[in-house]
């Protein structure tokens, strides 16, 4: 059992960790929002903000990782303390990836800006995809901040909707490129953006599952990264125990 002094030091360190996690979460949400703005409005200063945010998120990731390692080494935490630290370690990776995909979307927005750009509205489901992805990320990071498992219990099902949308948008873009209503260079960028949103949603799922573990110690099976699977193979995240598939 930790002494009172150790407990106090651990509690203070966990408070600092929580504060850094909250900041990193806010930056990640801001990054994806700004990336979507860059895409919708074609403003380069939005894209520039995303690039800066991505660097800040990456810096915070290392800071948080270091503090988690120190906490484990110094205090040998157990139970809720241990789960909070391990969940934070996992979630920082997902938040970092959210920053990175936001940057990728902003870069794609920059490329589209110089082209005879189709408006995002013409690919209707992509807007829906962006909204749903941001909503999933916000739900997950808010559940982490508020230490609530219930809001993220359905997140796997929301991700299934994203996967369906991803396939629809892909098909829509292929058709538009085939009938030449969208230039291939533009369509290719949208196909990439479509993919980034789908991956962003996977990271939101990962965060949600980590929140469930942190709070309940249930270990839902993590989302499988689908980068290596063929398009449409949809190796989606396994449904956590107790969830209807």
């Amino acid at each position, binding site marked *: *059992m*930790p*002494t*009172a002094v*150790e*407990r106090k030091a*651990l509690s203070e360190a966990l408070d600092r960790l929580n504060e850094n996690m909250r900041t990193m979460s806010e930056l990640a949400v801001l990054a994806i929002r700004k990336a979507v703005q860059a895409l919708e409005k074609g403003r380069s200063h939005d894209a520039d903000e995303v690039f800066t945010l991505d660097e800040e998120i990456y810096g915070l990731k290392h800071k948080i990782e270091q503090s988690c390692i120190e906490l484990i080494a110094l205090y*040998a*935490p*157990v*139970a*809720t*303390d*241990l*789960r909070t630290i391990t969940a934070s370690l996992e979630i920082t990776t997902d938040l970092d990836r959210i920053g990175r995909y936001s940057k990728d979307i902003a870069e794609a927005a920059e490329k589209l800006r110089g082209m005879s750009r189709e408006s995002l509205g013409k690919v209707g489901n992509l807007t829906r995809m962006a909204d749903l992805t941001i909503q999933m990320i916000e739900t997950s990071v808010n559940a982490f901040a508020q230490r609530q498992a219930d809001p993220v219990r359905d997140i796997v099902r929301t991700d299934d909707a994203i996967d369906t949308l991803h396939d629809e948008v892909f098909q829509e873009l292929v058709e538009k490129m085939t009938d030449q209503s969208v230039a291939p260079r533009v369509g290719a960028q949208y196909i990439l953006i479509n993919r980034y949103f789908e991956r962003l949603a996977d990271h939101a799922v990962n965060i949600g599952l980590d929140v469930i573990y942190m709070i309940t*110690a249930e270990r839902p099976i993590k989302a499988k990264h689908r980068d290596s699977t063929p398009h449409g193979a949809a190796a989606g995240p396994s449904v956590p125990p107790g969830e209807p598939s």
Partner: protein
Amino acid sequence: MEGEALGPSAGLNHDGAPAKMSVAKLSAFYGKKKAVSDVSLSFRENSVTAIIGPSGCGKSTLIRCLNRMHEVSPGGRVEGQVLLDGEDIYTQDPVTVRRRIGMVFQKPNPFPTMSVYDNVAAGLRLNGVRKREVLDAAVLRSLKQAALWDEVKESVHGSGNRLSGGQQQRLCIARALAIEPEVILMDEPCSALDPIATAKIEDLIFDLQKSYTVVIVTHNMQQAARVAEYTAFMYLGELIEYDRTKKIFEQPAQKLTENYITGRFG
């Protein structure tokens, strides 16, 4: 009480493995004071079980009930059952019980005037063993099992008191092993030792479970996590929670356990 969540027999199902010992509705008293209250649990054969809890929670009293040492204390009295291989030890000869259930104490207590050899052989001699070759074989086996042989083989007839604290504790373990017990009880066996000596004893405890059922009382939660497959948490004489060690330390079921192991106590 929160411990009721464990069920009437604190029946931890050891994944079908047999229980070597079990305790049923055990209460222990010092005069009128109840130190252990209605505890039921079972100890899996060939495994290490740790008992943790704050000072005065009854954990040392509980293991002293497991080989009938508690009744030797002034005012010591026991109610309930302690079963070894299904038979109540309180209906058996206490000397026979203590031969089957050995004990190692907090402070190393080798017999001060005896050599290393005689310390280890003492239990056998008390049981009437006189043949030199039998004693030699038992001393060699026990010192090797206690991971002490390599350090004392040149001076096995020297005084046990000249050994370091950690070596003395391993000598006491060798002494307990010499009479070939089935269960070994350890009451905070490392609390008087430095980290290196502690590591050696922990290595030893880990190895001993291959041949013995080990029950260890410890204040050191990391020690419980390192050596024990099962952990019981006691508070104010009651068994609050008993489960696999990894479950206790990752996902305790009881708030009291969580508060204790994370230091949010009192």
